């Protein structure tokens, strides 16, 4: 076998493998990439039923219903972006930070008769995630001082009343 044929083998193997990889990637990109859609986009042009999408929007206040189909817990709620609302069905446990009027991301498919069937629901603010800027701002303003305890959890940002806030405000001030 000459040097040239040997090199040809090598180049062929490389091209074949990388070509396959590229083809697989392109094929997967056209079918397996998950796009973010808004309820109005779903309304205007529903994605095909076998296409997984991420639906982002706000939970319509008062739309959340928890039921049991047999023994399976099923939650139903509407997600809106202002122009349109889409009903989401979800079998399973809603995240702790799921609340009406707050943003959610639902991952699932649009079924012609059933609305949006979610396989996963994510509340956008999760409990452990505290944006750095928020932590800094809280610290700077004296609402929270790392020396006096853990930061208020994201859940409590929304449930805390102005009275609670002024309490946390006055506590470090008193300690100074």
């Amino acid at each position: 076998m000459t040097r040239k044929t040997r090199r040809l083998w090598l180049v062929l193997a490389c091209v074949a493998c990388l070509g396959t990889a590229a083809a697989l990637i392109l094929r997967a990109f056209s079918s397996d990439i998950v796009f973010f859609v808004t309820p109005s986009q779903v309304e205007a042009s529903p994605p095909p039923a076998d296409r997984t999408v991420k639906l982002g929007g706000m939970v319509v206040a008062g739309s959340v219903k928890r039921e049991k189909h047999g023994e399976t817990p099923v939650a139903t709620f509407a997600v809106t972006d202002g122009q349109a609302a889409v009903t989401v069905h979800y079998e399973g446990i809603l995240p702790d930070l799921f609340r009406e009027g707050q943003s959610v991301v639902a991952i699932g498919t649009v079924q012609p008769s059933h609305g949006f069937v979610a396989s996963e629901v994510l509340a956008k603010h999760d409990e452990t995630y505290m944006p750095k800027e928020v932590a800094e701002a809280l610290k700077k303003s004296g609402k929270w001082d790392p020396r006096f305890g853990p930061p208020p959890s994201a859940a409590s940002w929304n449930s805390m009343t102005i009275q609670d806030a002024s309490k946390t405000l006055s506590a470090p001030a008193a300690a100074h």
Partner: protein
Amino acid sequence: MLSPELGHYALALACVLAAAQGLIPLIGASRRDARLMALAPGLAIGQMIALGVSFLSLIYAAVTDDFSVQNIAENSAVSKPLLYKITGVWGNHEGSILLWALILGLCGAAVAAFGRNLPSALRARVIAVLGLVATGFELFCLTTSDPFARIWPAPMDGQGMNPLLQDPGLAFHPPILYTGYVGFAVPFAFAIAALIEGRVDAAWGRWVRPWAVAAWCFLTCGIAMGSWWSYYVLGWGGYWFWDPVENASLIPWLTGTALIHSAIVVEKREALKIWTVLLAIATFSFSLSGTFLVRSGILNSVHAFANDPARGVFILGLLGVVIGGSLALFAYRAPTLTAGGLFAPISREGALVLNNILLCSLCAVVLTGTMYPPFMSLLFDRTISVGKPFFDATTIPLALPLFIFMGFGPMLPWKRAQLWPVLQKLWLAAIVAALACAVAVFELSGLLAILCAAAALWVIAASVTDLAERTRLFRAPVATSIQRARMLPRAIIGTAIAHAGVGITVLGLAAMSQAQHKIVEVPIGTTEQLAGYDWTLKAVKQEPGPNYTAMVATLEVRRNGRLVTVMRPSKRSFNSQNQTTTDVAIHTNMLADLYGVLGDRHGPDTNPTYVLRLHYNPLAPWMWLGALIMAFGGALSLSDRRMRIGAPQRAKPTPASSSVS
């Protein structure tokens, strides 16, 4: 005593020593000044000792609850158990960078200690490159993430640690994973030294391989531990999420695996030299950039790190110097290296090249999938996410041929081989794979799962065949076989074991695609059926713990009326941190895991219902067992006499040397 100031000073001292370690031997090597070169090992060991003192001071501060140190105040608390006080030191950004630097220092000292037989110039340059990298990280540690910063006034108690992180599995995961990442700094340093020297030969391949194999073993264990942790702590029954954090460890693992294979070709055939140098640089570059890009917040990960773009700029600068510098050197010097020979496609080296091509294609796929969302968002302002379906559809078809060739590869002779004799030896393995395929068609659903299961058994059977052939098992008297097995180089046994480990992991993965689960909301006393088991919720009780209260369920699992196990999944509420964690109950018989999670409580107090998540995970433990076997195979081949670090000598340029293998 060990005060934080001493630790800080020791860190600064280590930084200065590292800079000296980086410059003096390099100058010495270029001037051929033996005295300057001889300073390298001493400086490397000195730097390691300084880092050790620094690290011990931080541990001491954590153990003695010195909350005047900001890092301790933010991550520790008086009530925390001692073990977590110690392991918590590296559970945060600052401490983990210090641990990173310490491991890098240990690598430098290891080269100094075990590299006595290396040519002095090469050893000086390798240690120098490690010193330069260490200088960068210690500067990073000192300037932007000082673990010893004090706060005043010191709080009475610290803030404690995220309860999710209070877990023995996670406590020891970072050191092992980091040793894997940082360990690839040594092959990287060898590659840079070779580029400076302008010489890559068989001996270089032999010196570099043990270091690469050692780092690879640690990385394999680290990835397996991380995956196991997410399996039993996160409570979703999932073991791999294709999350950027996980991909960041998988990418260097893939290139590292390619590296340990291509280094064999350099050693035996003096070919693939430039490619191996590039792989060594790439593996360390991916280790570095993966971990650090995740921390800068560019990659969107479910694992929350404190995202800090400002810190990210420093990291990017550092990465630019290390990676950009080494690739620039590569572009400058590599074209002048003598290219190795080409060889026949059907031969051991041909198979190893194919392994490299396939592993690198896999790596390219994973890299594309990981980097696509941020690039799309940057270039086209489109938000997309790439998840499991993408990676399943792209990686499995590329991995399957890899598994098939893994069976042949080790049995092909070097230089020029015939395929037919090898196939004849493997007929039994082929039958096993075909049978497995037939069984899988009935047992498993999904074409890819069936093919994976068959490929996994093929790999295991071929590895066993390889060993059986070499020991002439069943064809010669047993005593002869044992004798031959004793004489067999450990590297060959190690290879077979590691390959079988891959098969076991893949078998576990294929079976896990058939996992069943069920989410139910039931009152006490209900019996659920899943995968042929009857799961009965017997009771739910409140139990107090040291710093939490737990809601503990008693779940009886029966099969055909016979009691299999009583599981006690629980949900813990930590009073101090306003957090809950779920404690998964897992029962395993090594063939399948029964996995139970307790969810929320609903309904009136008189007749409450509980959400239960039940999983049946066939062959789940095999995934991690296989990884451990892979690492064991690697470690076994490390103990091979011929692989022992430093033992080989550079071949003399005489014709006789070609016969020495």
